[in-house]
């Protein structure tokens, strides 16, 4: 056991796990300090959805981003008359990219199983980034990384088809 491990052991032993510690499991918040997580947690609202319950409808204003804490969410979008449907699961985020591109919902979201979502107001999210520039940069960096990874995966999937 080296010194770093010992330090981590002592930190884990004496540091009280708080409700906001669970937020670190989300890729966009993974390198946040405890205090940054605490600040972020102030705008998080936990919501429970029953199986089959509608989370939002198409064309509703884009008011809230959801972090999926538990359950599976079915998203269906209409692209030029063709229905696209996909599922999102634990620690994935609903509406992250849309807040930069849309002001209305492109599709609708329904809880496929009983789900727990962490809701963050879109306006609170923007205010948080503006009010905490350093943390905001971290956050936006992580968002960029996720979006780039998504684009790369999409390209890889399309290449064999071509």
């Amino acid at each position, binding site marked *: 056991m080296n010194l770093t491990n010992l330090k981590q052991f002592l930190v884990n032993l004496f540091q009280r796990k708080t409700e906001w510690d669970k937020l670190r499991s989300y890729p966009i918040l993974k390198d946040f300090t405890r205090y940054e997580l605490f600040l972020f947690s102030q705008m998080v*609202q936990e919501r429970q959805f029953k199986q089959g319950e509608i989370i939002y409808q198409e064309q509703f204003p884009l008011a*809230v981003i959801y972090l999926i804490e538990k359950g599976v969410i079915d998203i269906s979008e209409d692209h030029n008359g063709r229905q696209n449907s996909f599922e999102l699961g634990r620690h994935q985020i609903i509406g992250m990219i849309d807040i930069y591109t849309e002001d209305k919902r492109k599709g609708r979201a329904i809880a496929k199983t009983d789900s727990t979502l962490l809701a963050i107001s879109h306006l609170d999210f923007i205010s948080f980034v503006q009010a905490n520039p350093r943390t905001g940069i971290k956050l936006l960096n992580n968002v960029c990384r996720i979006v780039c990874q998504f684009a790369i995966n999409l390209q890889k999937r399309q290449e064999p088809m071509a």
Partner: protein
Amino acid sequence: MKLTRWLMYILIMGLLIGGIMFYSWIFKYLITAIVFAYIFNPWVSWLERRHVTRVWGILITYMLIGVLIAWGVVRIIPAIITQAESLIAFVSSASQQGEISLLKIPLVQSILQRIDYLDAQVPILKLHNQFLSLIHSINNSLMNIPSLLIKNYGKIFEAVSLIASVPIIGFFLLKDNVKFKKAVLSIIPNKYFELVVIILHKIDDVIGKYLRAVFYEILIVGTLASAALTMLGVPYSILIGYSAGIANIIPYFGPWLGGFFAVLSILIAGLPPIMILYAGLAMYLIQVVDNNFVYPMVVGMSIEMHPLIVLLTVLAGGWAFGLLGMLVSVPVVYLIYSVTRVLFLNLKEFKMI
């Protein structure tokens, strides 16, 4: 099952009505504390973002306010009290001596001389008596001011108790504002959650911005006007300066009121008429600074109300609640209008109406 549910609703309604009746007397305190919390929340949040916990942030904010108040008590309030006492003494002497006191004012004397000259030229006019009756009616109005102050001592004591309790209630509102917001949102059904999130955020934004703007404007415009009028040697400068700051709450007409107080003070003191021009210029410059620097900096938004509606609102406020009504009516009407607008637009967007 249905009966049980209805009984539950009735019980909850009863509890709510009972609670409202029981706590109704503190609504005024609560609303003032909410205004207080809205004004100082950005200070506490700013400190919180710099790793100062909310409790310490509130205590530091209170200490800063305490220091500012202490400085005001030592430096500004004695001057305001002296000026107010001098003004009350003047008004009291006017009420005791009738129109003779007002006739001592140089400007009034010169007007009377001209009227006498006109009467001598055209005896049929008889302006002298009409002018004296006008002075008499002004005096009657002035005579009521000291008695009004005496009659309102009860209200002054109430104001003192309000000032004492607001920081205590404000402490908890500032400390637990996030908890209160989360508690409110937690009882909203999922169907209305997003709508309520937007509405709460926008209402919070509009009210917060507006209250902070009013507070900082009163402070900045009041201080600037006091300083400018003191430099010019206008009597009751600090009293008039801060009155001008408070009057500034009324859009369009408030700034004119401030100028009017200054001109009235110069006329009463019998200072040279050129001072009116200087005071007017100073008040105009303060308005330029306010409109171009202070207002955009502290709020970045404006009251979008037609001047006629503002005028009618001020008149209606004055008619219903006196001077306080004149000051508060426009902000209250604006806030109600903004909240209703936000509510209507969002209900429409969420296809609920």
